[in-house]
């Protein structure tokens, strides 16, 4: 930050362009200028946009300052956001994943803490489930308002495969190991794992660390206490993961299997695997890919408990929600506050439920039966509402810079390229600022 002249910025911009050009990356930013007297709302472009559009329309009916919805389609969202957020094209309000996805922006002084909004309207805090709300709290101040659905990670299963092998949905770790043995004997892959994507592997680490050590260990590590990774609890969790791998739980070719190309869900749907640990979006994925199976054979449950573990058995991990954060330099803070209030409105909750998202307001419970799949929504809502802690996925809790080395480390530990010490060192080397 020492040079604040125009030249380096120009140079840097040009070089970004050069890097982008050399990768043949294309696409244009759609963020509008904030000088047109409107508030710009930037969201990740996908099928959920119709609700965001609806809310913006509702807002525009009464507000003098109009809102405009801009979208960035596809997986490049974070990259593009990072390049426009400190330019005049920056939006007023933007979609994010909380935690590490906004921390660098907070550190760079770009975001507005929302405590003033909350002071004027306490509902902007009280109306949301605290475990979810907390994942967008940075340095004690709220920076995000939940704006889509929660996505806890659940243990999905193929009920027929389990029944044929004489396995019940496991409640404890030992039952899970027992199930693995029986499923293996029955000739199926006990647990489908999209190891090629790396992040599905991370989910096993997130749950086992939480169950064994409680959410504190990870929070300590994230806060900069690198010794947490070398603690006895950390080693115990790693030992259990190894135990699972050595028992043949994931088969042998999990690193060649991907979730993102539909391969691991197909293993479960076609009865070639018993379980899969995945975010709650798995349900709608199976409804799309394997309709009959989703209707009859798909089971879901909370992650098994670990006897003697320090973590509360009610704890969940996953994507707590998506959030709207606000740029400090917005010219219309009052209008922005009014817009954010819509995120706990009944209209918002109903609209999200209608597209299969599970909003995390305290009022969700009374509408949950109107959801597309009431039973599943009810299960998830109760799970999340009762959870003592909801750990945001590690790769989203850490800053973006850490996600690649973190994904590599979990993959390498699982396939044996890294031993316990190697994994601990890799995690200690992650940047947490």
């Amino acid at each position: 930050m020492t040079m604040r002249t125009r030249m380096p910025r120009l140079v840097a911009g040009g070089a970004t362009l050069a890097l982008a050009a050399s990768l043949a990356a294309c696409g244009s930013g759609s963020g509008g200028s904030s000088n047109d007297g409107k508030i710009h709302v930037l969201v990740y472009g996908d099928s959920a946009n119709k609700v965001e559009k609806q809310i913006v329309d509702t807002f525009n009916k009464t507000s003098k300052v109009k809102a405009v919805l801009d979208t960035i389609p596809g997986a490049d969202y974070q990259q593009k956001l990072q390049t426009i957020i400190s330019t005049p094209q920056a939006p007023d309000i933007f979609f994010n994943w909380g935690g590490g996805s906004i921390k660098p922006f907070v550190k760079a002084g770009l975001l507005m803490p929302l405590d003033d909004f909350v002071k004027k309207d306490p509902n902007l805090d009280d109306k949301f489930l605290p475990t979810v709300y907390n994942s967008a709290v940075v340095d004690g101040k709220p920076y995000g308002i939940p704006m889509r659905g929660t996505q806890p990670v659940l243990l999905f299963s193929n009920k027929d495969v389990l029944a044929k092998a004489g396995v019940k949905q496991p409640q404890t770790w030992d039952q899970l190991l027992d199930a693995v043995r029986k499923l293996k004997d029955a000739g199926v892959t006990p647990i489908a794992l999209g190891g090629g994507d790396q992040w599905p592997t991370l989910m096993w680490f997130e749950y086992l660390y939480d169950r064994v050590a409680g959410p504190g260990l990870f929070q300590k590590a994230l806060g900069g206490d690198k010794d947490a990774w070398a603690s006895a609890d950390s080693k115990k969790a790693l030992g259990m993961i190894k135990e699972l791998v050595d028992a043949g739980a994931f088969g042998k070719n999990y690193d060649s299997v991907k979730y993102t190309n539909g391969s691991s869900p197909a293993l479960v749907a076609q009865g070639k695997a018993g379980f899969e640990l995945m975010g709650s979006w798995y349900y709608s994925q199976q409804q799309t890919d394997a309709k009959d199976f989703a209707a009859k054979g798909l089971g879901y449950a909370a992650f098994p408990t670990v006897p003697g573990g320090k973590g509360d058995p009610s704890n969940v991990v996953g994507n707590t929600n998506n959030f709207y954060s606000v740029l400090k330099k917005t010219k219309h803070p009052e209008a922005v506050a009014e817009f954010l209030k819509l995120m706990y409105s009944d209209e918002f909750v109903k609209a999200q439920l209608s597209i299969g998202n599970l909003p995390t307001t305290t009022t969700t419970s009374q509408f949950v039966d109107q959801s597309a799949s009431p039973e599943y929504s009810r299960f998830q809502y109760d799970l999340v509402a009762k959870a003592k802690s909801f750990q945001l996925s590690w790769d989203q809790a850490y800053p973006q810079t850490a996600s690649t080395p973190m994904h590599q480390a979990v993959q390498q530990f699982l396939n044996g390229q890294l031993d316990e010490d190697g994994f601990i060192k890799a995690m200690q080397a992650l940047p947490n600022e």
Partner: protein
Amino acid sequence: MTTQLTSAPPTAEAPRKARRRPEDSYAAHGTRPGFLWALPATLFFTLFAIAPLIMVAVLSFMSWDGLGSPEFVGTDNWKRILDDPVMIRSIWLTLLLTALGVVLQTPLSIVIGVWAAGHQRNRAVLSAIYFIPLLLSATAVSVLWRALLDPNFGIPARMTWLFGDGNLFGEQASAIGVLAFVSTWQYTPFHTLIYQGAARAIPPVLYQAAEIDGAGRFRQFFHITLPQLRNSIVTSMILMIVGGLTTFETVLILTQGGPGTDTTISAYYMYQKAFKGFDFGAGSAIALCLVIAATVVSLIVVRVSGYDKMRSDMEGVS
């Protein structure tokens, strides 16, 4: 590469033009063509190649995460990437994949190209089918092969005698093998096209003379065709090497640099550093390394092969 593709087929006009020597036209006008003629191309090249290159060079001495202003850090980025074991390994991996590409693709494309230059029956149909991969985008090809090589639902599941448990993307050797294979599958047709054109241009008198001297097909191939293709081989190899050094999308889609960092080649590492890690300084340093490496390798190939002398070797060469 596209310039190669769009070069027009020889027309009836071509020989006439070639016979007129360039000096004649200068003499007729009395002056050399003005600088103005080169201006559009020069501007274009400066704007889109030279200027960004200089900016990347400058950025490689700065620390920048995309937020705020870049900060000068001297040679910090360079020290960091040169000490980074993943970076060092990525260079070796890049060279290995490039070498594999050249070794696999060159003989294949020469053989197919020379065959396609002939006049056999069904040749046109078979060649047309064979050139299909050329029309597909690298991304589509990679997605296709990722699906075909799925261990549970793809080819490996049906051919366990060959693929074992099908863990092709889970081990370094097989992952590299897949990358080399897919690149070969995709790019061989392009190089075949170069050789087809070059083989067609070999004067038939050479073969007629050889036949009179009693040379068989193999001797004709090794003593006429191959020597005559020398310039094309150099062209094609430079394209392969530069293409190999900058391979990116194949890795992005097929292996994502994994397992672990086992197939993280330099171009992909640059992407990871710059666009996933928002470490644009280190990303620029890697980019610059790639530019330098590709330039040096191309120069070596040109110098060693004598391509820069550009002698015609169509007729009268032993």
